């Protein structure tokens, strides 16, 4: 008996000793190694899908980029104090957009992984070009958002502060790639964005505006439209106008506005998926959300009372509603209603009614009407008042508004274009940037003091831990 036990134990011990290296070979079952995952073009397509998915993050286009630029300016009246956006409404110290985090920077890394690796793996050339084009587009979009939140626009520097975002165009695949970088200057960043978008335009296929699932990924038209916007921010108005023209042709818009929706369809457009005017739209499905994401974080819950349990904390400001012209089709974007605990009429957004499911809807990021406004503003700044008015009127004709006064020029015309943009893109995240990029004070509602353009609160602030980690990273002035 003892012999048996002894030999079994000995055998077990020897076995264990003998095979010790194999014993520790444990592989993850739910994850892949980089070599396994990125062996062919399908793996890179998986990365691209993640890259798009990151844009719907509530800290990015899922909420922040849509509503914060409205609240920080004069389009939104906060009608309930849940703690959210109440600081932004009064432009309090540090109440600003905050996207300098891994969730958003990862989208840039996804793009860099695709651009750095897809050429070396087997797969159809057309697929690779498409993926590269998409990566260039998202990398440009994300860098552009960092640039406009954390820095000034070219030639708009205050006190010569010309630092913009960090630029990353190489993938982080290992520790050594995650080097400490300095913020590039504004023009360097814009040049990088321009280069990316020009590459994207070459690589991406043309897709018509609002044409089904085609607009859920980047297209040539999207790259052209974004580049038009970038040039406008940059002050390169001729290029802005040219790209807007190219984009219109690509997505199927004509000079007189044909292709845009009819006035009666304005509200319905935002409850259709995709929006018929979408050039680039991010799709969301119920499965992307936990059970409480809708009520907690969706644009619908914050800006609308379409669902009885919505938070409904943000109304159109009364100044915005008052600024709208008689007969404007976009009045349909607002639902006059009341809010317990807030005296007087308030306005729920009909752009965000959660028509896809409880609080659920897609995120239109680039819409066709912006092209007319970009070109109008660019033309106005180039002195082409007639051209500017024509573009403005093309849009107004589709919003049930008469043509502007034919004698409108100069700053009055500029203000008219700005006003048109304010109304057209209310609750879509443009207003703060449109004032800032023009060097204007941030206009405010309900008698709040405007934020002068030279105030430190125009720029957001970098996370303190990043400044402490990276001695070469400069914080924005005033923080």
């Amino acid at each position: 008996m003892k012999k048996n036990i002894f030999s079994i134990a000995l055998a077990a011990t020897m076995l264990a000793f003998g095979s010790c290296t194999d014993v520790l070979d444990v592989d993850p079952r739910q994850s892949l190694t980089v070599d396994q995952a990125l062996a062919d073009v399908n793996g890179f397509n998986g990365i691209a899908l993640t890259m798009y998915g990151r844009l719907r993050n509530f800290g990015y286009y899922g909420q922040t980029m849509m509503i914060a630029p409205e609240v920080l300016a004069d389009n939104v009246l906060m009608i309930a104090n849940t703690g959210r956006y109440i600081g932004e409404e009064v432009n309090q110290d540090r109440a600003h957009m905050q996207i300098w985090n891994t969730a958003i920077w990862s989208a840039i890394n996804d793009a860099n992984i695709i651009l750095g690796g897809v050429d070396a793996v087997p797969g159809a050339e057309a697929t690779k070009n498409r993926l590269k084009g998409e990566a260039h587009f998202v990398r440009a979009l994300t860098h552009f958002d960092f640039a406009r939140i954390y820095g000034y626009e070219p030639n708009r520097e205050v006190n010569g502060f010309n630092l913009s975002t960090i630029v990353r165009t190489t993938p982080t695949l290992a520790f050594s790639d995650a080097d400490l970088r300095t913020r590039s200057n504004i023009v360097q960043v814009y040049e990088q964005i321009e280069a990316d978008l020009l590459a994207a335009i070459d690589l991406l296929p043309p897709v018509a505006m609002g044409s089904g699932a085609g607009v859920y990924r980047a297209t040539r038209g999207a790259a052209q439209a974004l580049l038009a916007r970038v040039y406008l921010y940059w002050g390169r108005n001729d290029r802005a106008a040219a790209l807007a023209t190219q984009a219109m042709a690509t997505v199927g818009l004509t000079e007189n506005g044909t292709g845009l929706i009819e006035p009666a369809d304005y509200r319905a457009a935002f409850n259709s998926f995709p929006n018929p005017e979408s050039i680039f739209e991010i799709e969301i499905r119920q499965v992307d959300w936990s059970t409480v994401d809708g009520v907690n974080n969706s644009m619908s819950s914050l800006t609308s009372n379409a669902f009885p349990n919505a938070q409904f904390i943000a109304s159109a400001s009364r100044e915005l509603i008052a600024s709208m012209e008689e007969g404007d089709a976009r009045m349909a974007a607002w639902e006059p209603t009341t809010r317990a605990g807030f005296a007087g009429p308030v306005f729920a957004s009909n752009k965000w009614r959660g028509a896809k499911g409880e609080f659920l809807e897609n995120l239109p990021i680039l819409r066709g009407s912006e092209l007319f406004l970009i070109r109008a503003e660019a033309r106005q700044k180039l002195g082409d008042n007639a051209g500017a008015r024509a573009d403005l009127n093309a849009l107004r004709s589709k919003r049930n508004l008469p043509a502007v006064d034919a004698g409108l020029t100069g700053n009055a015309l500029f203000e008219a274009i700005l006003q048109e943009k304010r109304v057209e893109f209310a609750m879509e995240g443009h207003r703060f940037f449109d004032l800032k990029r023009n060097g204007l004070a941030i206009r405010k509602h309900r008698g709040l003091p405007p934020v002068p353009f030279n105030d430190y609160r125009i720029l957001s602030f970098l996370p303190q831990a990043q400044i402490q980690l990276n001695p070469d990273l400069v914080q924005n002035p005033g923080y």
Partner: protein
Amino acid sequence: MKKILLFGLMLLFASASAFAQSRIITGTVISQEDNEPVPGVSVVVRGTTIGVATDLDGKFSISVPENSNTLTFSFIGLRSQDVSIGNRSIVNVTMVPDVQSLSEVVVTSYGDQSKREITGAISSVKGEIFQDLPMQSFDRAIQGRIAGVQITSGTGQPGGTLNVRIRGVGSVNAGNDPLYIIDGVQVPSGGLAGQGSQNALASINPNDIESIEVLKDAAAGAIYGAQAANGVVIITTKRGQKGATKVRLSVQEGVVRPLGNYDVMDARQLATLKIEAFRNSGRNINDAIAVYGNPEDPNLFTNSWVDATFGDDRLSVYDLSMSGGDDKTTFFLSGSFTNQGSQLISADWQRATGRLNLSHRPNQKLTINTTLSLAYQKTNGAIDRGNFVNSPFQAAFTARPGVPIRNEDGSFRDYPSDHLFGYNIVQGAAEELRLANTVQTVSNIQLNYQFTPWLSFTSFAGIDFADIREENNRPSTIAAFRGQGGSSVFVDRRNVNFNTNHNFNFNKRIADVHNISGLLGYEYKSETREFMSATGQGFANPRLRYLQNAAVPLNVNSSFTEFVRVGFFGQAKYDYNDTYTADFILRRDGHSRFGQNVQYGNFGAASVGWRLSNEGFLRDVSWMDNLRVRASYGVTGNSEIPNFASLSLVASTGQYLGSPGLALSQLGNDLLTWEEAETINIGIDGIFFNGRVITTVDFWRRNSRELLFATPLPVDSGFGSITRNAGEVRNQGIDFDVQTVNVVAGKFRWSTSFNITFLENELLSIFGDDERVGNDLVVGLPLQPVFRAPYVGVNPANGRPMYRDVNGNYTYTIRDADVQDSFIGSLLPTSYGGLSNNFAYGPFSLEVFFQYQFGNLAINNDLFNLASTGSGPNNQLVDQLNHWRQPGDVVSNPMPWETGARPGGSSYTASSTRQISDGSYIRLKQVTLNYALPTTFTKKVGVAQANAFVQGINLLTWTNYVGIDPEVAALGLGGSFFAAFPNAQQITAGINLSF
């Protein structure tokens, strides 16, 4: 051939004992403490296996062979004694309490060793210390009982987890939990379930525990090598003893009560404050009245969300055990049931346990031990920690008192949607199901073969298996879930821990003074964790909650993870004449978590002991019973990081356009290897004045280095951190433990146990030349430092909150620099311990036990919600009424301002020292009053011993902490917290009976 020989030998022995001449010795055993007879004392003829136990009257009768002349009397808790028989036929013995516990044996999974020769720092707690305490799990039961061991209850959820830190916090990102070994099975601590805290260690009924040993330094822990850097806790359950079968029954019933609650406002107080805030901020005060009511209205409605959410609940503990055996087989069999409510209406915990511990010796050489346990735990949980509107510990305090909880018909009323996401917390607590059901076993089998008297071989295999099933049902009766038609999540988890070891033990005594012992072995350990969950939405009726009833199947999820660890170990020990001891340990461990070429690490320790009291120069010092110094040095390891932390991983990220996404989720590090803890310990053990004073003092230093450190990366790289071996943390301190018998006078006896640990913690380096990681880690400071701009009160001129800036001036707006340079302390305590006083008078005994810790800050984030002077929509602490009203007011709270976003300054709810207080506390942890019924009475009803007792837990707390329970603020769980589940007060009464 050998078997026949063995059999023949045994026959020979048997006949020898049968035919030898013998005599009958009788007698009575009484206790010195109360002069009462002691039943169940083992009486053995020394040098033989002949033995009996005393009966209910303490009497025995034993047949003693002619050539034997000594009887050995032993009983747990009493000092064993050998009595020479001489010519007597009646031997009466008085047993004295065993205050000198050094003769005990410390059980490790690799073999037992006498505590007398241990050279490492080991502390021990006997199961009887916490017998019948309603403490749910042993980690809670030994809180404050052991020097050097800080135990805090991070949650008041009954059956919840605790945080155990042995000699400080050495690791930044890897685990700081000790290694738990329950009857040789390595059991991971922490929570089992996701729907409320459920303690993985609570499957063990504390009443089943014989003893708990805590191995604090490397000399003690190095035999466990790779896992021992945070210390080792060894739990040994009870085994049967040869003799008559003993039965023990204990029953107790009691109440659980809130320790306290925040004192929040009623509707009138809140409305008054909010109107002030609206007026001051230039808003329409009618808006405030519309929401909060008009304080001038004599009929203003108010109700207390706090009272509706928290209250008293029941507590019941039933425990039955049976033990006994014969020469070959002993057993311990037990069963228990606990039903413990909590102060929260929806949270409770039930546990049923069963255990069978068997030992069998088929022959003189082979011993088979097994422990089989099965436990069922059912937890109705609650959201614990986090600023969630569906957490009772947040919303019950923040909900507006002017909003009715119920409609007039008694049904729950929907809460206004502008606050708390429209969630009625009382309804949520009552109707949302957060259930966890766990079946767990911690079982093992051990074979021990004694080749020769000095050499044995042990094979051990043990398993910790837990199957956890969770449900979270959110019925459509609750407004927030109505749109979806309600939702249900079902989760299944299966955790399997397996470890097996095979080792030789030797122990040889040469020339009666040289004792050489040691062991050599191999160990394999694996852990797998599986997880599966499914979610459904849309139920036709809120009574339906199973997924079969769901209209929309929503999320499905499953995962699997595992690790493997192997180790080879050896120990050699030499002891000379019980005076000089030396001990050497070596261990080599490999872990699947680490980089391919650095999976193995070497660990070891060396220690020496010198018993001064055996030396001639001290032998005549009569008041010194024992004096020994110990010294040790060693290195142990830590590998508590995620299973695949060394690999670059590409993981799934959900879907886009219906197709699965992939992402690089983690940056790998091929060089990732063990974190090491280098420990030096110098200890002194002393026993003085005939065992009246027993003391242990340890001076220790633990340098944790090559930390498994999530070193930060610039977030613009797309990654927040990478795990690298970098950095060093030093903990050093003094553990002091003393047990004294202060007074013995007639029937009165007073004894005291006191322990305290003083320690300091310092981050010596991080990586490269870097000096700090954000405001979270700074070289030269303790871990868990707190950087906050100091709140210096309210400017009497204008009612603005003021903070001290970096230049020492006051400011309204906090800048980066004001925070970065304002180190105000650490969340780690600088001392902790416990004090127990035991008073006995005849059949009465009283234990009064205090537990304490000092020197730590506590960040109570609840104050952001409750102490913002009416900035937000939340109800406020009543003390917020004491706010600035007019120039010249010197008060601590500013002028109320709706939103708190007063232009020209930081938000009223900016992080500052306004949310921080001193986390030190002294707590009257336990008072137990016990009455031993007269045996003359109990015997008439066939009961050997009967006790009736009353006890209270968490009775009083002395602290300057601003909040409900400083204990849940301790240990800095994540640095700060919202809405923690505070501990409760428990008062129970019960009886225990022994047959």
